[in-house]
């Protein structure tokens, strides 16, 4: 495709903005219909217990009640890597908020009244509410029957309360640490949970008709919903159709099956349409949080400032069921093990069961806190060896031909030129001097993220009116990639303007399999599949035009809605004419495309338990900020924030800038305000917007942004995902800046005013993890133990 074709589609404005502003967009929560039933879930109020008695007969007789379902209606177990998660608690409950029964009634009030009529006796069992308790000697097991669960992906070590373990071991780490000339630096970090707080809660409307379920839902992953619902209900996946209205925010919350199976069961049992929407409190208590984590990292640094050896232990709380954390153990090697050249490295990353609400995916999952830990550790190294942090980073960042932690060979010098761009960006608008008694600090950090590739499918139908219809299972969650990048890519390929490309909303009956919208993959994976499909259509159009114009196909040019003989403007026909002619002559023109991960290799034998051993498309980021810290109250104000982001190729700079501003602000929430933790009763303590504090308009600054283009990418037109990575090193950058401002060791996030004030007055307790053993090998689960 030519530069001109790309220019013609650049900066296409999203077509869904107008209706969203007019209040006309109908999200899943807005979809009601006459005769619809309303559902509600009975959830456990205790973190651990045996269900001695469950009797729903009285509830079933309550006024307006049309269906009641329990574990007897959903025999399956699902999961990622391990099938450990039933739809309803069966013999035991494992967390506060775990569903026990579901009711559908004529009104929500009647459904809730019926919940109160369910008899459930739960005998309390000992609970492990944090990873320290879970990994203690003789800790009660969250899943005593773990050995009996079906293993869906082979290779991860498991045992007791360790749901999954991924490890990396490359080079001779012991030898590196044993060198007489190295400086050994050890750091420990702890982070809390983060709630997505998407404004639209998880919500679903389900029907059962003609032997099939139709699930209309607010999700990022229609195919996961289809397949997981089928597994849990014990029905064929082909019996389930999933469609997705506009999604009112996801951020990873909706990257898993959620309420859909409950609504599907109730729809089948009642024969009616069933709506189920989480209350805000249910969302607060059971959202699939970014997990709390505990990290110990040690490095052996040579006198020249190179990193001879590194070892790290990362504990990730998966909550009561493995879920996404099983997969995310994979990411530690690429995030905590990323950014820098390492002589030798060993890392273990463990997903740990606790009797708490399950955690899940959240924008730049795992990377956010591992980057915080890595970058704070990096600053501690620089201080320990007396090197400026910028110089240390410049010397050690991954460049062309360097090995990553898993032995992957990286291509291209990306981070070093980005660091130079950041220095220039900062020079344009230097740090302000404070005169109000506050402490000032600044920091620059680097980060490594990736595009979650994986399978996608697309079909492009060329219509006789000159428009094209793109059919995929992609979902518009707000990022705009379905509204902008995909029609732009198809339009550029077909010589159309993007407004001529209609994008079908996800429907698993209409489009092929897709991993889902998340992991920065929409533009890349769905984009590549869409481009392939569009190329097939273009080839067919040119062939038809070649017949019509009596010219060789290779002499034809497709642009501006026309197909012309090269060099003879006006000689050809409109695309509509060609499509119409082709349709009459050969039948409607269409093309299909598909995409799958490239399978970039790691070094043989150095990883165990990883779902992704090497990154197909690495994405890099350099962040910088200035902060002011109030020494009397601990308030941190971000005065300026700067981002240099590797985007491969920017198809829509305005959209990317919007993602960066939004992602950075979400990261500022994680860094400074957003705290979610588990109380002694096993409930999440922050139950509402009052106590869970996201950034408000007064708390943000305009981010200064520079895009770095040209880094290698297998994405279509050289693109990379740009929406996920902006949050990656915000926690890291703010933490490093606060450490610089205060001269204190920052080991925890978020840096709320009480936590910062405790640091300032030397009352903060450094994280101590007795359950992380001193010897690295003692943190590994022997397979089959």
């Amino acid at each position, binding site marked *: 495709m030519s530069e001109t074709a790309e220019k013609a589609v650049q900066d296409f*404005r999203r077509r869904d903005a*107008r209706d969203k502003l*007019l*209040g006309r967009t109908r999200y899943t929560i807005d979809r009601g219909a006459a005769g619809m039933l309303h559902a509600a879930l009975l959830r456990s109020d205790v973190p651990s217990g045996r269900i001695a008695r469950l009797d729903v007969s009285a509830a079933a007789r309550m006024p307006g009640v049309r269906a009641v379902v329990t574990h007897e209606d959903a025999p399956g177990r699902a999961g990622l890597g391990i099938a450990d998660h039933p739809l309803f608690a069966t013999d035991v409950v494992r967390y506060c908020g775990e569903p026990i029964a579901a009711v559908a009634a004529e009104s929500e009030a009647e459904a809730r009244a019926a919940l109160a009529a369910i008899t459930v006796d739960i005998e309390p069992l000992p609970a492990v509410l944090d990873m320290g308790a879970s990994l203690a000697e003789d800790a009660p097991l969250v899943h005593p029957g773990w050995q009996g669960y079906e293993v869906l992906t082979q290779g991860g070590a498991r045992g007791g309360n360790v749901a999954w373990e991924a490890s990396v071991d490359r080079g001779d780490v012991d030898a590196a640490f044993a060198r007489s000339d190295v400086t050994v630096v050890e750091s420990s970090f702890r982070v809390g949970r983060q709630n997505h707080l*998407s404004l*639209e809660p998880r919500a679903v409307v389900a029907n059962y008709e003609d032997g099939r379920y139709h699930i209309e839902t607010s999700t990022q992953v229609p195919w996961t919903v289809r397949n997981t619902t089928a597994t849990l209900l014990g029905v064929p996946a082909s019996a389930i159709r999933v469609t997705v209205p506009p999604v009112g925010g996801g951020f990873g919350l909706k990257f898993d099956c959620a309420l859909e199976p409950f609504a599907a069961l109730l729809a089948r049992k009642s024969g009616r349409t069933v709506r189920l929407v989480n209350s805000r409190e249910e969302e607060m208590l059971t959202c699939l949080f970014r997990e709390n984590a505990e990290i110990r990292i040690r490095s052996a640094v040579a006198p020249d400032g190179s990193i001879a050896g590194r070892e790290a232990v990362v504990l990730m709380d998966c909550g009561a069921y493995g879920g996404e954390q099983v997969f995310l153990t994979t990411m530690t090697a690429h995030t905590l093990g990323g950014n820098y050249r390492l002589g030798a490295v060993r890392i273990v990353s463990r997903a740990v069961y606790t009797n708490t609400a399950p955690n899940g995916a959240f924008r730049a999952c795992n990377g956010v806190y591992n980057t915080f830990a890595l970058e704070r550790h990096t600053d501690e190294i620089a201080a320990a060896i007396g090197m400026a942090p910028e110089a240390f980073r410049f010397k050690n960042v991954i460049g062309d031909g360097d090995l990553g932690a898993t032995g992957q060979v990286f291509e291209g010098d990306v981070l070093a030129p980005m660091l130079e761009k950041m220095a220039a960006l900062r020079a344009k608008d230097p740090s302000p001097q404070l005169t109000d008694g506050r402490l000032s600090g600044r920091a620059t950090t680097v980060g490594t993220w990736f595009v979650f590739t994986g399978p996608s499918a697309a079909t492009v139908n060329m219509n006789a009116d000159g428009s094209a219809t793109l059919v995929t299972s992609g979902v518009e969650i*707000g990022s705009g990639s379905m509204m902008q990048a995909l029609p732009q890519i198809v339009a550029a390929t077909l010589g159309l303007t993007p407004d001529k490309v209609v994008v079908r909303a996800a429907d698993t009956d209409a489009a092929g399999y897709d991993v889902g919208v998340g992991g920065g993959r929409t533009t890349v994976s769905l984009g590549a599949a869409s481009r392939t499909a569009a190329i097939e259509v273009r080839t067919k159009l040119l062939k038809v035009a070649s017949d019509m114009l009596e010219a060789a196909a290779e002499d034809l040019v497709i642009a501006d809605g026309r197909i012309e003989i090269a060099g003879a403007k006006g000689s050809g026909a409109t695309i509509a004419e060609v499509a119409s002619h082709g349709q009459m002559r050969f039948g409607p023109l269409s093309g299909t495309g598909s995409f799958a991960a490239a399978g970039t290799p790691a070094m043989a034998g150095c990883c165990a338990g990883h779902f992704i051993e090497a990154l197909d498309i690495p994405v890099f980021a350099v962040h910088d900020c200035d902060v002011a810290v109030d020494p009397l109250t601990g308030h941190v104000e971000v005065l300026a924030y700067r981002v240099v982001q590797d985007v491969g190729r920017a198809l829509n700079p305005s959209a990317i800038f919007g993602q960066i501003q*939004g992602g950075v602000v979400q990261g500022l929430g994680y860094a400074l305000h957003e705290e979610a933790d588990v109380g002694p009763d096993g409930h999440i303590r922050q139950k509402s917007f009052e106590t869970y504090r996201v950034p408000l*308009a007064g708390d943000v600054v305009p981010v200064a942004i520079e895009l770095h283009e040209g880094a290698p990418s297998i994405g279509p037109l050289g693109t990379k995902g740009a929406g996920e990575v902006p949050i990656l090193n915000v926690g890291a950058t703010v933490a490093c800046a606060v450490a610089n401002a205060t001269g204190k060791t920052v080991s925890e996030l978020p840096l709320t005013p009480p936590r910062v004030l405790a640091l300032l007055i030397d009352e903060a307790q450094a994280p101590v993890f007795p359950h992380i053993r001193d010897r690295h090998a003692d943190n590994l689960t022997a397979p089959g133990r």
Partner: protein
Amino acid sequence: MTIRLTVNGETREFAAAPMTPLVDVLRDGLHLTGAKPVCREGFCGACMVLVDAVPTVACLTPVALVEGRDIETVEGLTSGESPTPVQAALEEHDAVQCGMCFPGMVVALTHLTTSGTCEPNRAAVKEALVGNVCRCTGYERIVDAALAVMEAGHE
């Protein structure tokens, strides 16, 4: 009880329990789904409507307390499909992402840009918007759009 409200210029009468939050009456009773019940505690602003021209969190407003009053929802700000200056500016500034906050945001900004109660500067606009949570955009484009409308109004 029977409640009578003027909604978007039209008098509507219907039966509702008096403590029913106004947002539920608008959505369930009148099918005006623009206002979103998100936090139901007055902190997010997604359910904001104008009551006698004052931005009001409809989640904390018992319908009986607004009996006989003039309610304007996001749907009522426009006639037909032409956007208001606020909506046009938000579109022009490419501010929209998931969109859930915008019905309330548009109501808040409509008041802010027309009531003369807010100084046309960033700090004042941000202070006036602290009751409208947006989880996607990081706010700055929304502030830009508001300032553009206020500046255009002063020309």
